[in-house]
């Protein structure tokens, strides 16, 4: 049987559906010793902001049952250095690139969209709207329909129309399909589901929050059922929208679960920390499983859990 491992996400064809998750693959330079970046469907870059950022103080990390909390604070070089150094390097290695952008204000998102527009070799832009909005007492953009809409609109209005945009949503909302609805109306071509959940660990020796930033984003297998649920709910309400699924995928079976729920591609995050070759393992296992289940292509399996028959 001829098996088709390519996938179409936001109108773009990728050779396979396994991507890295934003902030979980460094600049790509850290992983290339372990496998060629061309073997990934795409590299999703760390979320890049307008200016350089030191990130937060340490401790930035706490391991939790089947997961971890992180509070990095979007450490990064800023968009100028990123476009000058990171993007050309990724292009030179033949990687498909999804650039993740993050802003502190609606104007930041607009400016980032303008700066990205002139750059060749980018497959799509993932818009991280799970960032504190400095204009609204630090409330996270994606947790409020008005600010979520404003951020995605700002990107849509300012970006090269040929560049698809993927809105990355937070699961920390009452109804994720409501936020999905507003960002689709604002022009999102696809959705990345899900970002981390906000959590906290208190150190019972110091009797204070363990992380310097007090709260952190929970990731890893602990959140996978939340991600599968979110993908399923959004796919049920918006069958035509492209979904990039993520949240605690560590093996091919779990990637398959996300595809069945409605994801056209799957980003691997925390699993890279436990195993630099996690993406390659997941990709091989997923392909084997799709074939074993009788699918001729990835596309045929996307959203298959929603079928009414049998």
């Amino acid at each position, binding site marked *: 049987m001829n098996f088709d491992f390519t996938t179409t996400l936001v109108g773009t064809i990728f050779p396979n559906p396994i991507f890295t998750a934003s902030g979980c693959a*460094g600049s790509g330079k850290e992983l290339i010793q372990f496998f060629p970046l061309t073997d990934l469907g795409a590299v999703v870059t760390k979320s890049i902001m307008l200016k350089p950022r*030191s990130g937060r103080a*340490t401790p*930035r990390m706490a391991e939790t049952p*089947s997961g971890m909390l992180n509070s990095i604070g979007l450490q990064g070089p*800023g968009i100028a250095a990123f476009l000058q150094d990171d993007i050309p390097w990724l292009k030179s290695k033949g990687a498909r690139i999804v650039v993740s952008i993050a802003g502190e204000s609606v104007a930041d998102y607009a400016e980032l969209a303008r700066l990205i527009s002139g750059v060749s070799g980018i497959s799509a832009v993932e818009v991280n709207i799970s960032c504190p909005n400095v204009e609204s007492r630090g409330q996270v953009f994606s947790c409020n329909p008005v600010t979520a809409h404003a951020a995605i609109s700002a990107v849509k209005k300012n970006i090269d129309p040929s560049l698809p945009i993927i809105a990355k949503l937070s699961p920390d909302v009452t109804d994720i399909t409501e936020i999905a609805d507003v960002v689709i109306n604002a022009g999102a071509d696809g959705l990345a589901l899900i970002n981390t959940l906000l959590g906290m660990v208190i150190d019972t020796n110091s009797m204070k929050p363990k992380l310097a930033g007090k709260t952190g984003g929970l990731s*890893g*297998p602990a959140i996978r059922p939340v991600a599968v649920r979110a993908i399923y709910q959004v796919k049920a309400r918006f069958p035509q929208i492209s979904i990039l699924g993520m949240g605690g995928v560590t093996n091919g079976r779990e990637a398959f679960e996300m595809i069945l729920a409605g994801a056209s591609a799957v980003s691997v995050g925390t*699993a890279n920390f436990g*195993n630099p070759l996690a993406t390659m393992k997941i990709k091989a296992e997923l392909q084997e499983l799709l074939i074993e289940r009788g699918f001729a292509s990835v596309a045929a399996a996307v959203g298959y859990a929603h079928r009414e028959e049998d």
Partner: protein
Amino acid sequence: MINKYAHAVDAEIISNKRVGAYHHMVFEVGAMAGQVRPGNFVAISVGGETSAMVLRRAFAIHRSMDRGGSGGVVELVVAPHGGGSKWLTSLEVHRKVNIVGPLGTAFGIPTEPVRALLVGGGYGSAPLFGLAEVLKSRGSRVDMVLGASTAGKIYAPLEGKRAVNSLTITTDDGSAGLHGKVSDFLPDLIAASGTEIIYSCGPMGMLAAISKIAGELDLVHQCAVEEAMACGIGVCMTCVLPLRDSNGTIRMQRSCIEGPVVDGSRVIWDSPRAIPEGTWGAQ
């Protein structure tokens, strides 16, 4: 190039012995052993296939032996502190664990013979014995001082003792050697042995105290820092510490990539749970 020599192997445990408060463990890693330099570390996945512990554990390499072909080994000194290290130290010989390495920077070895003082805190002494052997083989004088809270937490194997010109032990509770902290005795030890360079590995507080002394005496101080890591390969950005670069800019740098061995004078030591003022990109 980042992680230039790193690769992953399923390594068989060929020895696991309790030594005081620690376990001395030997892993058959094959060709990886030949790439190890003193100061490098490995990252090991813990808990088995169905483990709820999703992150690797980082361990400084105690010693490595390249026996050509598949026989190479690395030796680690593991303190069974948390769930991951307890699991690892409980494993029987012949079990396999996944090891990624060698990772991180190594101690710089002077081309000319020097008078070196090696300072270890607790199991932080582990990488210093391999370093001592390399320094001795280059004709250097090697004095060593090891400190810990109590006698059982001093790691000083017999063959390691033979590799040094002098060994001083200090304990906080006076149960072995000199009564006090290593830093209390450093100025005298440095004066007595004519130290030209200090190498250290241990808790951050100890490294900070040594850096202060090294700075006052204008001595080179290479230290292996210890920050909590999630990945060990530079992708998670959790193990950062503030380092001053060559033009004076302070940046939050990964201790797994820029370190673990760094020049002590580059580290901004006095900023627990805060970003030092003036750090590049500070908000």
